[in-house]
């Protein structure tokens, strides 16, 4: 109850937290791969006069995939920046109420975007959009992104439930 660490809770919400953390780490690994690709590209063009082909477009796609994978983790770790100054004297119960409302917004946004980007994926697929150099099909990038959005919905449900519990008990957890 006292710990805010993302990893140490038991039960189904503990499992969900580990999955969300693991997913963010996987996104971090994608980020590292993009870093590596850029380093190889610079060395390649400096040493043998040949950059990594398609490094621009793969950077764009890879960073987008990584950034989406971070969103659920931000939600469960409460990392989205707020201006606390106006409510610094509010009681824990009020603060829990504010964060309940914020979780509701996150939940609706995640669900809306999941729904719309599913159609985005279908569009990309039916129009056959590909990157210019490597001809990488754009819709494939949407698959991990949709998983990230589904996890964002899950993360918002977790924070929603926690705020509801805090409102009931009157304590911050």
């Amino acid at each position, binding site marked *: 109850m006292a710990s805010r660490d993302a990893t140490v809770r038991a039960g189904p919400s503990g499992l969900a937290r580990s999955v969300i*953390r693991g997913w*963010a*780490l996987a*996104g*971090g*690994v994608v*980020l*590292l791969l*993009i*870093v*590596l*690709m*850029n*380093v190889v*590209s*610079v060395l390649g063009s400096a040493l043998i006069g040949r950059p990594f082909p398609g*490094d*621009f477009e793969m*950077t*764009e*796609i890879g*960073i*987008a995939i*990584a*950034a*989406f*994978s*971070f*969103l659920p*983790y*931000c939600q469960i*770790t409460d*990392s*989205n*920046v*707020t*201006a*606390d*100054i*106006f*409510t610094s004297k509010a009681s824990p119960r009020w*603060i829990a109420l*504010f*964060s309940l*409302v*914020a979780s509701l*917004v*996150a939940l609706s*946004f995640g669900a*809306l*975007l999941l729904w*719309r*980007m599913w*159609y*985005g994926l279908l*569009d990309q697929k039916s129009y056959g959009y590909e990157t210019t150099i490597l001809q990488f099909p754009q819709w494939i*990038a*949407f698959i991990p*992104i949709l998983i990230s959005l589904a996890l964002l919905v899950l993360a918002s449900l977790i924070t929603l439930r926690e705020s509801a519990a805090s409102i009931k008990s009157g304590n911050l957890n």
Partner: protein
Amino acid sequence: MADALFIGFGGLAVLVILIALRMPIAYAMILVGGIGVTLLNGPAIFMSQLKTLAYGRFSIYDLSVVPMFILMGNISTKAGLSQDLFRAANAWLGWLRGGVAMSAIAACAGFGSVCGSSLATASTMGQVALPELRRYNYSGSLATGTLAAGGVLGILIPPSIVLVIYAIIVEANIVTMFMAALIPGLIAVIFFILTIAIVVMVWPNSGPKGEAASRQEFLSATLRMVPVLGIFGLVIGGIYFGFFNPTPAAAIGVALVWIYGAARRLVGIKAITDALLDTAKTTGMIYLILLGAEMLKIFMSRGGVPQAMAEWMANSGLAPMTILILLLVSLILLGCLMDSLSMILLAIPFFWPVLVEINGGDYVNAADAGFGMTSEDLKIWFGILALIVVELGLITPPVGMNVFVISALARDVPMRDTFVGVAPFFGAEMVRVVILLAFPAITLWLPRLLSG
């Protein structure tokens, strides 16, 4: 149109209320932007935009330096760079009255050259320098004030995350912005060191002399600084001289700080995992705000709010310089309530059109312009000024985040004392802003020189 404008301003009011009620700033922007666009355009267009809007924002190439610079900063906080920098600075400056504090400022600037975040700079350097300052009997307020202020140096010394974000909002060239930031950033370092010299002259007990370093210590400490200078030189120098784009440069920076940390056996799997998770938090937070800002921007420009504000200011009869100063003052005030990144993303889309309008449009000649410079130059000059003033919020009450971070490290010093200790540095910052306002050439000279 008047109706659209009314809805636009109504939306702004709702946004402010939501932010005041602890709604995460990103979600407040998304909510107001989304509902506003739906009200003005009907749901169909917005629903169709949502299919690719977020992906389009997240996959902007210029933005890819942001997570990389964040990761570079997060690895460098664990790589032992801060100790080396402080030790070297101390060997050079430690023997002066107030010298250990001056060293802390120099080390903060050095750390700012590999890390783009003020808070990370303040807390990392705080952990290293605070115990030393206390050991030499520095007064609590000078010690904590120095470190809280030292953190803001990072905003202008490249790589700076907020600088990249500013460049993307106003569509400025990131490389040009990095060049423009260097001299104003160095001026801040010099001013902060002079500030310490003045403080210890007036209150000699607040900062005693340190010991002069032995010849051997001087040499070995200075040598230790070489890798940091090398990383900065390669990454930022490479960008300045056009060897590579910011993104590959940032990638090389990540690799180099990692290698540095690994060679010193400070960065292993655990440290990288932590650095990646911290990067995930910051990057996700920033990207979500960027998305929110884009949705808000679509709504506001559809409602005609920025245009209305620009016209209203242009017809107010105020001199261009007065308007610029008013905008900067309002940034300082807003900066007291919000973090600098959210501030930049919220305010610049409104402020920038105002400045372009009073300057005479996007393509005005320098001779006919309200500020006597092209709008491209204005973009750079205003950007540097805006970044300096939004960071002042980090060291002023009520939400001075840098002060909070340092106070958490120095529990024996009351937060009041830290705010008192920061005050002289705040004064130095005001002097810097006035100088940069009076002489735009200080900012514009280096980009002109380097881009030939």
